[in-house]
């Protein structure tokens, strides 16, 4: 059947057709939809793991136990999972195993533009790079075969445009693959130094075999056209190159990019007059090609920063640009992403933003937007879980320097489960004195509402144990813990004051569902339905803009009459503005 699929949907379809038995991941843009689309297939055990390292390790366990296993993550997720990933490079597999790395050139939803192709080279694992949805599907199937044939982990490296672009895919049937028997094999699966030392030799041998495969496979193919220009490309960059060069160049299109097919590259280079390497981000292929003594043009012309596109390829190589309509683009006022109307993070950060002499460490999630104007209530954002441990280190230094500055860490529920728990252990163990705020909005929100250990539901929506944050925090050794509703501003303010007055580490759990969350039965019981909207009485409004300073997108300040106004379509009736208004000009209606 011909179906339009995103690259992520096609990876899931490929996993289904390849007979995959086990899949695990932690959500992360642009990779999230891979597991969501595997989930409906009853033949596959599919799970959200608390973090990427756990996802990879559970997939490794499944693979050693004889299953075909797949795991997927965003590029920075592989940093978290790097430890088991590198070891897999040595041990190889039992059942086939594929790791999907979804890189984010252009930082559409990420903190950096790291090029994870270098990971494949460094960990000595085989790598595929699909350039369309059809290739995504086909390559999962092929990667499973290669993984089992050569006894290696295979990484499929995607990018945002491949993950989130739709193109036509010819779907097929699932081929059931029997789970292989598990045979205890200590020299292979137990990487004690003596075993690993022997395994390193095995890996180098496998790489030689894989290089031979790379030179022979039709995953790496040549399209002959005019031989004046030759283009070597892979991934979505190949599509951009085709768009720019068309039939005026010959192509060596690489689908298997580690180890590179250097013999094939050399033959292609010999036949063409000028050789371009068109690749997105870093000169991964170019460096290796040049090291092999082959002349080519790459990053001298094509930038290694931001997302590539046909315009950039064309301008870099030919110096030409399309004709465009001439107008003043700066007339468009910016439209940055904002916390939604009714977002509990706004209610939390509104109170925190009032605190003086404070360093606020942040983390990865919707709440990172708490650092944007008008709240400006976040100083740092480094990586998942960093808020809690960074706060600890910073506070220690302030103390040593006789600075009485307070340090507040802000972290989401899913992020706390991901990697905040061990950081909090550090605070207790090393006699820290930070205030850790866990913003529990009852869901993994930023990536599009995935369940996590705290929601009480699995990836498939099945009921499971609901992990409570407060007992975890107490078990880690925190003595001062309060769970509060941030929508109640008086309680929010009082609790922050309580924590600031303590001279020991404390945790505030700010618990209220995401405004976009579809309430579960338990949410309804705990938080009740929310209805109605807020209304400004223009006679009472003094135009002080305090409600506007919450940054709610439902509130607009009418400059002409110097009064606030609330858009009733957008307003969800959270009552934050009503509580902060000094003249009680806002009331709730329509309940």
């Amino acid at each position, binding site marked *: 059947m011909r179906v339009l699929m995103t690259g992520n949907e096609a990876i899931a379809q490929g996993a289904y057709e390849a007979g995959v038995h086990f899949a695990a991941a932690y959500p992360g843009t642009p990779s999230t939809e891979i597991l969501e689309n595997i989930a409906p297939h009853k033949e596959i055990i599919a799970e959200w793991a608390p973090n990427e390292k756990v996802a990879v390790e559970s997939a490794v366990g499944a693979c050693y136990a004889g299953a075909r296993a797949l795991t997927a993550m965003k590029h920075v997720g592989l940093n978290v999972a790097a430890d088991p990933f590198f070891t897999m490079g040595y041990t190889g597999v039992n059942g086939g195993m594929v790791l999907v790395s979804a890189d984010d050139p252009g930082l559409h939803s990420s903190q950096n533009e790291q090029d994870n192709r270098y990971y494949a080279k460094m960990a000595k694992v085989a790598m595929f790079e699909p350039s369309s949805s059809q290739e995504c599907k086909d390559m999962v199937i092929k990667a499973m075969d290669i993984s089992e044939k050569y006894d290696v982990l295979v990484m499929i490296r995607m990018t945002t445009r491949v993950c989130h672009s739709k193109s036509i895919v010819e779907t097929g049937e699932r081929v059931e693959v029997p789970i292989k028997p598990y045979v205890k094999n200590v020299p292979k699966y137990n990487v004690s130094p003596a075993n690993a030392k022997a395994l390193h030799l095995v890996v180098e041998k496998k790489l030689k075999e894989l290089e031979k495969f790379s030179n022979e496979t039709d995953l790496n193919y040549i399209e002959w056209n005019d031989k004046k220009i030759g283009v070597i490309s892979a991934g979505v960059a190949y599509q951009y190159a085709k768009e720019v060069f068309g039939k005026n160049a010959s192509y060596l299109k690489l689908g298997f990019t580690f180890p590179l097919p250097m013999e094939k590259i050399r033959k292609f280079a010999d036949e063409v007059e000028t050789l371009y390497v068109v690749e997105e981000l870093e000169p991964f292929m170019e460096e290796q090609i040049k090291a092999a003594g082959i002349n080519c043009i790459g990053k001298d012309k094509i930038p290694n920063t931001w997302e590539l*596109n046909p315009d950039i390829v064309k301008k870099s190589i030919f110096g030409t640009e399309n004709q465009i*309509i001439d107008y003043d683009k700066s*007339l468009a006022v910016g439209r940055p992403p904002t916390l939604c109307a009714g977002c509990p993070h706004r209610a939390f950060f509104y109170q925190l933003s009032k605190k003086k002499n404070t360093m606020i460490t942040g983390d990865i999630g919707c709440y990172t937007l708490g650092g944007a104007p008008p709240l400006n209530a976040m100083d740092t954002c480094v990586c998942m879980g960093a808020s809690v441990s960074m706060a600890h280190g910073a506070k220690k230094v302030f103390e040593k320097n006789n600075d009485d500055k307070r340090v507040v860490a802000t972290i989401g529920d899913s992020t706390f489960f991901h990697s905040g728990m061990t950081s909090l252990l550090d605070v207790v163990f090393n006699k820290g004195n930070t205030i850790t705020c866990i913003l529990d909005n009852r869901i993994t929100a930023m990536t599009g509402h995935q369940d996590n250990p705290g929601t009480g539901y699995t990836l498939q929506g099945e009921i499971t144990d609901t992990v409570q944050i407060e007992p975890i925090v107490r078990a880690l050794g925190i003595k001062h813990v309060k769970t509060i509703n941030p929508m109640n501003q008086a309680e929010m303010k009082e609790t922050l004051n309580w924590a600031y007055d303590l001279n020991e580490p404390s945790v505030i759990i700010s618990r209220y569902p995401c405004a976009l969350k579809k309430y579960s039965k338990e949410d309804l019981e705990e938080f009740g339905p929310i209805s109605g909207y807020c209304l400004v009485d223009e006679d009472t409004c003094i135009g002080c803009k305090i409600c506007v300073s919450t940054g709610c997108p439902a509130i607009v300040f009418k400059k002409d009459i110097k009064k606030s106004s609330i858009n009733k379509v957008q307003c969800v009736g959270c009552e934050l503005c009503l509580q902060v208004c000094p003249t009680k000009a806002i009331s709730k209606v329509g309940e």
Partner: protein
Amino acid sequence: MKDTKNILLVGVGGQGTILVSKILSTGLMEAGYDVKMSEIHGMAQRGGSVSTQVRYGKEVSSPIIGIGEADILVSFETMETLRWLEFLKPEGVVVINDFKIPSAPILMGKADYPEGIIELIEGKAKTKVINAGEIAEELGNQKVMNVVLLGALIKSMNLTDIDWEAVIKSQVKEKFVDINIKAFKKGMDAV
């Protein structure tokens, strides 16, 4: 490739560009075209500026449209037209929804919603203005504004030979089929 047509849909997160691109690309695929569609999920969805790109033809390579390459720009929100106009071919068509969503700096009173956008665009490109919000309200649900705009797009791109009603039926929930088909027809009539 030269025969490839480029459609750019722009708006604000939550305006329903995704459903429109889904109906559009499904219809084009069923009509026998090669189709590629690209959109970015993630952080921008939180009230940010969003764009969806649909390319179709005999064989499509890049999933994204370059600057100065769009045959049509359909703007679900008035000011967004200004942000994306550079992607339009000089001889391309703009369909502007006369519908304003103020962004954060405007809400906070730090900037003003620009005036005279429609007049400015009309002076620069072949422009069709539609009040899809009003049409959708008349039909009883402002949310179908997106399918009104789809109708306007289909008419403007001369893609009326495809059985869009059947495609809409296959892509929206049964109870919303009637209102969406009405919205689609109103959109076709409006340009």
